[in-house]
């Protein structure tokens, strides 16, 4: 289980205090949305193997953060908590998709879709294809370190592992991607 520093349970509040917290949550949600929604959607797109689910994951993360706003001790770390929630939800989604794929019926033949749009461009990107061939931990480490530009410690906190593990995952992921993307350079 990943833990964000500054997160702790808080005692029950009165109705007035609760309404104040709700107003703060609404304001913070709006600010977080305007500043980070796009980047978080792109982060989710790199973590998931289905770009179409990235917005759903990020929106769920925003809803969860809004619901838990009153229990957040250090609200300056709301973005970190939001990122960790996105990572956790992406993991859950991947896990569910693996289970669903095991029991899925025979897929229909591929057909061109008018909604593919920008997502199809992303799906066809070589780096995305190479990234999805990495193990989940390596993919998370590479994305958090080189796309989200997080430090090893922050990435370790979000992934719920040690800094050394992040280093190892990053190194292996980078090495694997080097081989897969050799032709692009």
């Amino acid at each position, binding site marked *: 289980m990943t833990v964000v520093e500054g997160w702790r349970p808080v005692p029950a509040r009165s109705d007035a205090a609760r309404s104040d917290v709700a107003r703060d949550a609404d304001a913070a*949600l*709006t600010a977080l*949305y305007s500043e980070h*929604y*796009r980047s978080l*959607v*792109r982060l989710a*797109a*790199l973590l998931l193997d289905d*770009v179409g689910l*990235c*917005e759903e994951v990020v*929106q*769920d993360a*925003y*809803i969860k953060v*809004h*619901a838990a706003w009153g229990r957040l001790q250090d609200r300056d770390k709301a973005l970190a908590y939001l990122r960790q929630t996105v990572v956790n939800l992406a993991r859950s989604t991947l896990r569910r998709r693996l289970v669903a794929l095991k029991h899925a019926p025979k897929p229909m033949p591929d057909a061109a879709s008018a909604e593919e749009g*920008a*997502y199809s*461009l*992303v799906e066809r*990107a070589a*780096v*995305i294809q190479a*990234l999805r061939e990495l193990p989940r931990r390596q993919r998370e480490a*590479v*994305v958090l*370190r*080189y*796309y989200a*530009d997080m430090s090893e410690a922050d990435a370790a906190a979000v992934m719920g592992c040690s800094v050394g593990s992040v280093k190892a995952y990053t190194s292996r992921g*980078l*090495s694997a*991607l*080097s*081989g897969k*993307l*050799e032709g*692009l*350079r």
Partner: protein
Amino acid sequence: MSALEPGELTRLLAEAVEPIRPSPDAYQQIRAGIDRRRRLRLPIFTLGGMVMAALVALAVVAIRPSPNNQTVEPAAPPVLPSTYVGPTQAGTVPSSGGSGPTGSGGRGPGQGGGTTRTYSPPRTQVTTPPATEPPLTATPSSPVSATSTNAASPPLPTPVAKPAGVNDIDGDGRPDTIGADGTTLQVQFSRDDQVARIPLTGITTPLNSAVVDIDADGFGELFVQTGAPNGMKTYALVRYTGLDTLTLAALPNELPLAAGVRGNSAYGFRCGQDHTLVISAGTSTDGSQFSVATTTLEFTPTGLTVQGTASSTAHIPSDASPFVPSCGTLS
């Protein structure tokens, strides 16, 4: 193969996701999700509380012990074999002061008394009431607490004659054997050769005793002298309260069973005409003129009860002294 530079990887990743644009109604979807969650919160909490309450109730019902429909009756007290005869000499189970297997059978408990049950008769010396006063110098017999009725005590046998014959305690028409072993009174019943023992402090051999069927119920009462401190003879009254069972009786109102004059106080007792025991207690100021309080005691199955009291005066030694034992062979 050249290693992929971090900066280059960052650029590739950014370029790959660059086409992604958030949907225009993303914010409204988030707000809708928040509102939906807020609306569902109360029903979910309510449902959760109800489920928890149901679980607690189920746990209580499951853990609560079922009502016991079985009636547990206390075990009956062990019944002592009353007619067991050992091969040669059996052990003695004495009890004094109410402890141990005391019992009173049909005649009930007299106040005070230890009952001794013995299952084998060691033939002890046979003692008859001596004609002369024995040299009893010990203190009077210690008061013995009342004997409680024991449901397991054997019932009284049927006497062959009323009143009982000479020295016939167990009512079989034949004399019983009375003796003493140290400070223990021993009575061997002629009915079944069983021996009952009662500890009586102060008795010595030869024993000064008398068997009188005062209440004419067919079972003799036994008087035993337990001491004569300073010329005041003290006695113990033993009753036959069940088969092979003797009980030391105590007099009501702490009346003494004694005979003699000591200073300005005097006591005596006699067996009355109407199956009673009469206790005389006298007080004097000069040692000769006594005010006598006479208490008549009646024998009941549960002990001795006061039937009546009277007062008189007696001048010693000109009048007949009421301060003597006058029951049977006691005088």
